């Protein structure tokens, strides 16, 4: 008389020898699931990218000749929560950047005595001329604010990454 085979055994007819084969197949399925998740992550970033760019109203940030060479002024642009800095550099005149450090979003400050933009959180340093990172952990340059002169006023008109 044949022994009675339990139903679970019929549904899972693998012994120890075949156990590893099943484990690898399962692993491949999970790997495929992870692959799908990574693909979806890339697609989400691609979809969100166009929404990232915010348009903002032009905003007067200073008057012409108000800042002397080497001086800076802090303001908010494009939104009331977005900190920015306007610097009158000796070499290039007025430039403006977002104050948000591209490393971990701390606020960078302009240090006139060393002519640099400095992030106190992790000692990141940016060039005030270009906004490029020159020391510390940041890898990307500071977002630049486009300035425009209208009459006697300097306006912030756009934010470029």
């Amino acid at each position, binding site marked *: 008389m044949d022994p009675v085979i339990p139903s679970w055994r019929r549904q899972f007819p693998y012994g120890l*020898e075949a156990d590893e084969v099943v484990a690898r197949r399962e692993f491949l399925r999970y790997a495929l699931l992870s692959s799908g998740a990574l693909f979806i992550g890339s697609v989400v*970033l691609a979809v969100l990218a166009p929404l990232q760019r915010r348009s903002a109203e032009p905003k007067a940030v200073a008057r012409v000749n108000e800042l002397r060479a080497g001086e800076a002024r802090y303001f908010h642009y494009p939104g009331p929560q977005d900190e920015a800095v306007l610097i009158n550099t000796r070499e290039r005149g007025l430039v403006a950047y977002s104050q948000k450090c*591209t490393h971990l979003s701390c606020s960078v400050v302009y240090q006139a005595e060393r002519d640099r933009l400095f992030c106190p959180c992790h000692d990141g340093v940016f060039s005030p001329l270009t906004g490029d990172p020159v020391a510390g952990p940041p890898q990307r340059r500071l977002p630049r604010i486009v300035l425009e002169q209208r009459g006697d006023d300097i306006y912030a008109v756009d934010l470029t990454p």
Partner: protein
Amino acid sequence: MTGPARSRTGLGRDPEREIATPPGLQALLLAALAIGILMLSLQLWLLTVSLDLFLAGRGGEVWSLAFVSGLIFIGGLVALRLLSRGPQSRA
């Protein structure tokens, strides 16, 4: 005192009921695993590059990376489908 030998599943070994790995399948699965891990690493790297581009405001370039990532995913899907057909249907 030792009892009867038991497997990890709590069952004694029953060679008649166990499925023997067909010749060549081991190597095929191992190759699939190695390539799969490599492709996953590549996808992870693509995602980090995408995130870097996204944060740098160059999101328009992310689509090409997402496309490559999608190709890898579809390749994995096809490979797993071929593997899951089993040795019987391939014979």
